[in-house]
C-alpha cells in the first residue's frame, strides 16, 4: 500500500502544533497517532511494493466496494487539527436542521463539559452504526446521488437558485436520505448535531491558546453570515443541500466506524476517531464516495499539507490560517456554481467516467445559494480531484501522474480562462476621494462603485466607502491566500507617508491634489485588475470588499504600510533564499521567463524614470507658458499701437489655452504611461514573487527528499543492526516521508503549472493593456494637436491684422 501510505498526510507537524496549542487534547491525540499508525500497519499486511499495484486495480473496477477499505487506510492518517477547522462549518450546516444552530454553537463555545458528553455520545453512536452493512447504503446513495447531481448541476447552469429547482432537489435529496438511512437517519442527525457540538470546541480551544484575539470572531462571522443568507435567501435550497450532506455524513460515519470496529481498537481511539476521523470523512468522504482512492488521498493531502507548510512558515498562528481559509472552502461547495466551475466540471465529465465527475460537480453545485465564496480554492481542489481520477482511469502509476496532470490542469484552466476572458462584466470605479478627520489621524476615503452583470452579485450596481488601508488589507488577504499557490496577485499602490502627510497637513496645493488623484486612479486600476482575474474575483474577501457596507478595520496594514519597509524585508529574505536555495532549474521555460521578467523590470524602471522626467518637463512647460502668457499680457497692455496691443493680448489668451493643453498633456503622460509603467513594475514584482513561491515549493520538495533519504539510511542501519522494534518505527517514518515527497512534488508541479498559466495571462494582459493605453494616448495626442491647430488658426488673422 505504498501509494496510500505515501499520500497519507504526515501526522507530526500538525499534531505538534496541536500539542502546543491545545493542552486539553494532548494525551488523547498522541495515543491516537500511535493507534492510527498501528492500525495502518496492521491493515497493510502485504508488502509495500505490492500495494502499489493492487490499489489502482482494486479501486477501479468497483467504485463502491473498494472505497471503504481505502477509508480505513486513510482515516487514521488524516490530519486532526486542520481538518477539524475545515469541518466545523460543514458540521454547522449539517446541524442546521436542528434549528438551534446558533445557540448550539454558542453554548458549545461556552461549555466544554457538554462537549465531553457529546464525545462519548458520538462514540456510542458510532458503535451503533457499525452493524450496518456498508455496501447497500453506499451503493444506493451513490446512484441516487449521481443522478440527482446531474439534475442539480443542470439547473445551476440554466439559472442560479430558482426556487423550483431548489425544491425539486430537496425532494430528491430527502429521498436519498431516507433510503440509505433506513430509519437510522434520525440517530445520525443526532449524532451529527453532537459532532458539531464538539468540533467548534476543539476549534475554539485551538484558536484561543494561539492568542490571536481577532481571529475567531471573523472566522465565525464568515460561517454565520453565509448561513444566515442561506436561510433567508433560499430556504428550499438550503434544505435541499443539507439533507444531502447529511446522507454523505451518514454514509461516511458508517463506513468509518464499521471498519474501525473490526480492528478492535480501544475505546479511546474510537473517540478520537469520532472526533477527528469522522469530521475528515465528512469533508473528504464526498469525493471518496465516488472517486477512486487516489482522489481521496490527493484531496486530503493537498489542503492539509499546504496548511502544514504554512504552519511552519507562519509562526503567527497556524490555526488562524486554517480557520480563516477553510470556511470559505466549504461554502464554495454551496455557493452558486459560476460559469468557470461548470465548464471545468463538464470537461471533467468528458475526461472521466460519469459517476466520478458528477460527484465532483456535486461539491460545487450542491447548494445553490448565492454566496460569495472562495472558488479559487474550490476550483483547485476540483482540478486536483479531476486529474487523479483521470489518471486513475488510465491506470497509470503514481509516478507518471505528474505530466498528464499538469497538462490536464493547463487545458482545464485555459478553457476556463477563455470562458472568463470574454466574460468579466464587472467594472469597478473608485471615486470621490474625501478626507476624513483632521491632523495626523486623517485618512482618505474613496467611493467604490461596482457595476456588474455577474449573477454572483446581488445587485447590478452597488457602492461602498473604503479607506486606503482597506485596499491594502484586501491585498494582504489575497496575497496570503493565493500567493503561495502561484497566482499573481495584483499589488495596490504603495502607502506614501510623504504624500499623505501633505494631504493630512491640509495643504491644498496642486501636488497634494495630484497625489490624491494619482492614488485614486491607481486604486481603481488595482481593483479592476483584481476583479478581472477570474480566480481572485471568486474570493469571498473580494466580494466582501466590494459589497459589504462595513468592513472590519484592517489592522495589520501598519506593518505593510511602508512599502519600503516591506520591500526591505522582501529583499532581505529574497537575498537569503537566493543564497541558500540553489535551484537547478529543470524547466528552461521558467529560467527564461525569470530572466525576461528581470530584464523587463529593469527596462520598466528606466522607462518610468524617463516618463517621470518627461512629465516634470511638461509641467514646467505649462508653468512657463503661463508665465509667458502673463508677460505677453503685460507687454500688450504697455503697447501703444492698438492693433499690436490687441494682438498681444489675444496671444496671451492663446498661450493661456496652450498652458491648459500642456497641462492635459502632462496628465496624459502621467496617467497613460507613468502610472501604467509603475503598475507594471509592481506587477512584475508580483510575478517575481510567484517565481519565488515556486522555488519555495521546490525547496520543500527537495528537503523532503533529503529527509527521506536519511530515513532510508537509518532504516538500512537498523536492518543491519537487527533492531526490529525500531525498524518498525523507521518504516513508518519512511512511508510518511515518501508520502510527503510525493505530495510536495505534486505541490511543486501544481504551483509551477499555475505560475506558468499566470505568467502567460500576465503577458497577454500586458500586451493588450499597453496597446490600449498607447492608442488612448495617441488619440489624446492627436486631439491636443488638433486643438492646437485651431488655436493657431484663430490667432493668425489677429497677427496679420496688426499692420
Amino acid at each position, binding site marked *: 500500500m505504498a501509494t496510500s501510505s505515501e499520500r497519507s498526510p504526515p501526522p507530526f507537524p500538525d499534531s505538534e502544533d496541536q500539542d502546543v496549542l491545545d493542552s486539553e487534547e494532548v494525551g488523547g491525540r498522541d495515543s491516537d497517532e500511535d493507534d492510527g499508525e498501528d492500525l495502518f500497519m496492521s491493515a497493510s499486511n502485504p508488502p509495500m511494493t505490492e500495494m502499489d499495484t493492487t490499489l489502482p486495480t482494486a479501486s477501479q473496477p468497483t467504485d463502491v466496494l473498494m472505497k471503504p477499505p481505502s477509508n480505513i487506510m486513510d482515516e487514521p492518517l488524516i490530519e486532526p487539527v486542520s481538518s477539524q477547522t475545515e469541518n466545523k462549518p460543514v458540521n454547522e450546516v449539517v446541524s442546521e436542521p436542528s434549528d438551534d444552530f446558533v445557540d448550539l454553537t454558542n453554548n458549545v463555545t461556552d461549555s466544554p463539559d457538554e462537549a465531553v458528553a457529546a464525545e462519548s455520545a458520538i462514540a456510542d453512536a458510532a458503535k451503533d452504526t457499525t452493524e450496518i452493512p456498508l455496501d447497500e447504503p453506499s451503493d444506493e446513495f451513490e446512484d441516487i446521488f449521481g443522478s440527482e447531481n446531474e439534475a442539480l448541476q443542470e439547473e445551476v447552469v440554466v439559472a442560479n437558485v430558482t426556487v423550483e429547482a431548489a425544491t425539486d432537489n430537496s425532494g430528491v435529496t430527502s429521498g436519498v436520505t431516507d433510503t440509505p438511512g433506513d430509519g437510522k437517519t434520525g440517530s445520525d442527525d443526532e449524532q451529527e448535531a453532537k459532532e458539531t457540538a464538539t468540533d467548534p470546541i476543539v476549534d475554539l480551544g485551538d484558536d484561543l491558546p494561539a492568542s490571536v484575539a481577532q481571529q475567531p470572531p471573523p472566522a465565525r462571522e464568515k460561517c454565520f453570515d453565509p448561513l444566515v443568507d442561506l436561510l433567508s435567501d433560499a430556504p428550499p435550497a438550503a434544505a435541499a443541500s443539507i439533507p444531502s450532506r447529511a446522507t454523505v455524513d451518514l454514509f461516511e460515519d458508517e463506513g468509518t466506524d464499521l471498519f474501525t470496529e473490526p480492528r478492535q481498537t480501544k475505546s479511546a481511539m474510537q473517540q478520537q476517531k469520532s472526533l477527528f476521523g469522522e469530521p475528515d470523512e465528512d469533508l473528504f468522504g464526498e469525493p471518496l464516495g465516488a472517486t477512486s482512492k487516489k482522489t481521496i488521498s490527493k484531496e486530503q493531502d493537498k489542503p492539509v499539507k499546504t496548511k502544514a507548510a504554512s504552519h511552519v512558515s507562519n509562526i503567527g498562528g497556524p490555526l488562524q490560517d486554517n480557520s480563516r481559509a477553510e470556511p470559505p472552502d466549504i461554502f464554495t461547495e454551496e455557493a452558486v456554481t459560476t460559469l468557470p466551475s461548470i465548464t471545468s466540471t463538464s470537461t471533467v465529465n468528458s475526461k472521466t467516467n460519469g459517476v466520478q465527475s458528477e460527484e465532483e460537480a456535486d461539491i460545487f453545485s450542491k447548494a445553490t445559494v448565492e454566496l460569495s465564496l472562495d472558488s479559487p480554492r474550490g476550483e483547485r481542489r476540483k482540478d486536483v480531484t479531476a486529474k487523479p481520477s483521470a489518471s486513475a482511469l488510465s491506470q497509470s502509476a503514481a509516478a507518471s501522474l505528474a505530466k498528464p496532470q499538469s497538462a490536464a490542469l493547463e487545458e482545464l484552466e485555459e478553457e476556463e480562462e477563455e470562458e472568463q476572458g470574454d466574460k468579466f462584466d464587472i467594472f469597478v470605479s473608485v471615486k470621490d476621494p474625501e478626507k476624513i478627520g483632521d491632523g495626523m489621524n486623517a485618512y482618505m476615503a474613496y467611493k467604490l462603485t461596482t457595476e456588474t452583470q455577474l449573477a454572483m452579485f446581488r445587485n447590478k450596481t452597488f457602492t461602498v466607502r473604503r479607506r486606503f488601508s482597506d485596499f491594502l488589507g484586501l491585498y494582504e488577504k489575497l496575497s496570503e491566500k493565493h500567493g503561495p499557490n502561484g497566482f499573481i496577485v495584483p499589488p495596490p499602490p504603495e502607502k506614501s507617508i510623504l504624500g499623505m502627510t501633505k494631504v493630512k497637513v491640509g495643504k491644498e496645493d496642486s501636488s497634494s491634489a495630484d497625489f490624491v488623484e494619482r492614488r485614486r486612479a491607481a486604486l481603481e486600476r488595482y481593483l479592476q485588475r483584481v476583479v478581472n482575474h477570474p480566480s481572485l474575483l471568486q474570493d469571498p474577501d473580494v466580494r466582501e470588499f466590494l459589497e459589504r457596507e462595513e468592513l472590519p478595520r484592517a489592522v495589520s496594514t501598519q506593518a505593510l504600510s511602508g512599502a519600503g519597509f516591506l520591500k526591505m524585508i522582501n529583499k532581505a529574505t529574497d537575498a537569503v533564499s537566493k543564497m541558500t536555495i540553489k535551484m537547478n532549474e529543470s524547466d528552461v521555460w521558467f529560467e527564461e521567463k525569470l530572466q*525576461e521578467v528581470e530584464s*523587463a523590470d529593469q*527596462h*520598466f524602471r*528606466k*522607462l518610468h524614470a*524617463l*516618463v517621470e*522626467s*518627461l512629465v516634470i*518637463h*511638461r509641467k*514646467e*512647460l505649462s508653468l*512657463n*507658458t503661463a*508665465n*509667458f502668457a*502673463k*508677460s*505677453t499680457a*503685460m*507687454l500688450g497692455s*504697455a*503697447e*501703444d*499701437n492698438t*492693433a*499690436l496691443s490687441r*494682438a498681444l493680448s489675444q*496671444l496671451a489668451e492663446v498661450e493661456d489655452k496652450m498652458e491648459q493643453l500642456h497641462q492635459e498633456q502632462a496628465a496624459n503622460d502621467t496617467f497613460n504611461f507613468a502610472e501604467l509603467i509603475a503598475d507594471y513594475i509592481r506587477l512584475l514584482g508580483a510575478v517575481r514573487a510567484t517565481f519565488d513561491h515556486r522555488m519555495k515549493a521546490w525547496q520543500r520538495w527537495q528537503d523532503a527528499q533529503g529527509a527521506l533519504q536519511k530515513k532510508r539510511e537509518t532504516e538500512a542501519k537498523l536492518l543491519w543492526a537487527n533492531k526490529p522494534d525500531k525498524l518498525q518505527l523507521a518504516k513508518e517514518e519512511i512511508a510518511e516521508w515518501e508520502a510527503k515527497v510525493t505530495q510536495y512534488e505534486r505541490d511543486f508541479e501544481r504551483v509551477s503549472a499555475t505560475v506558468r498559466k499566470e505568467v*502567460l495571462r500576465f*503577458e*497577454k494582459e*500586458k*500586451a*493588450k493593456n*499597453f*496597446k490600449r493605453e*498607447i*492608442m488612448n*494616448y*495617441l*488619440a489624446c*495626442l*492627436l486631439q491636443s*494637436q*488638433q486643438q*492646437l*491647430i485651431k488655436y*493657431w*488658426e484663430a*490667432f*493668425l488673422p489677429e*497677427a*496679420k491684422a*496688426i*499692420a
Partner: protein
Amino acid sequence: MMEEVKEVTSTLSVDRHNINVTEVLKDGDSLTFLIVSQKLSGTGEYHVARAYDDFEWLQQHLFSQEDVPGIQGVIFPPLPAKAQVNASAKVMKQLGFLGLGEWQPYCKALETFLRQIAAHSILSKNKAVEIFLTSSDPPGRQRVRKNIFNRLSQAVEEKRKEGHKDVDQFFQTERDHNLVLAGCAKTAAERFLDVVQTEQKIAVACGHFSAALHLCVEPGEDSDKQAFSKACVKLSEVFDSMKKNMTSVAENNVSTLGLGLDLESRYQEAEKEMLFRRTCKLVELESARRNAEKAKPVKKAAMEEVKKAAETEFDHICGVAKQEIARFQGARVEMLQQALVQWCEKQLLTAKESAEQFNQHLQALRGMA
C-alpha cells in the same frame, strides 16, 4: 584704417537687403562670422570674414561720428552681446535666445544688426560700414577708446540723470513709455526663452524615452510578446515624432518670435540709451544756460557761445530723435507683426504635420489589432 578704404563713397555699394551672415567658424575660442553681401552694381558678392571685435569697431565708429549733427539722437541698432565659445552661465543668460543652438540665432541677430545699419539713412553714410562690408582685410583689431556712450559710464550716470524732468512733453512721455516697454519686452523675452528651453528638454526626454522603448522589445515567437514588442516599437516611433515635433516647435519659436522679442527688447534698450544721451545733453544745456545768466560780463560772451552751441546741438538731437522715434515705432510694429505672423504660420504647419503623423500612427496601431 579709413585711409585704406578703396571706395570712399557716401553711399553703400551693397544691397542693403541682401546682407547675410551665412556661417560661423569656430577657431579655438574665437568665433569668426562669414558675411556675404550682394553688390549693388553688378552680380558679384562680397565675402568677408569678421570677428566680434570688428563688429564692435564698427559700432564705435558709428557712435563717434562727431561731424554729423544730432548723431546722438540716433537710435543705434543694437549690437548683440559678445558671444563666447563655452560661455559662462552669466553670459548665456545675457545672450538669451542668441545663445541657443549652434549660433544660428546669433548670426541672425548680427545679420539684422548689419541690415539695420545699412538701411539707416544716417549711419549707412559712414565709411566704416563700407569698409566693414567690403574690405577683405579685417578693419583692425586695436581697442577703440571708450567714449561717453560706453555702457559702463552710462550705468553710473543713469541713476542721476534718468529722473531729470524733461522740458518737452513728447520726450517725457516717450521716456516713461520706453521704460515700461523695455521692462516688459525683456520679461517677455525671458519667459519665452524659458518656454523654448523647456520644449527642448521635452524633445530630449522624448528622444530618451523613444530610445529606451527599443530596449523593451522582447524576442520570441510568442504572439503576445510580439504584440507587446510591436506596441513598444510603435510607441517609440510615436515618441520620436513627438520629439521631432517639439524640436521644430522650439525652433519655430526661436527663429520667429524669439528673435523678434529679443530684438524688440534690445531696441528698446537702444532707444533708452538714445533718450538718455538726449537727457544728458539737456542737463548740459540747462547748466550752460545758468552759467550764461550768472556769468561775469568778462566771461559772458564765452558763456553765451557755449550756451548757443549746446542749444543748437540739443535742437539737432531733438530733431533727429523725433524722426528716429517715429521711424522706430513703425519699424518695430512691423517687425513684431512679421514675427508673429511667421511664428503662427510655422507653428500651424508643424502642428498640422504632427497631427498628420499621429493620425498615421494611430491608424497603423489600429490596423495592428
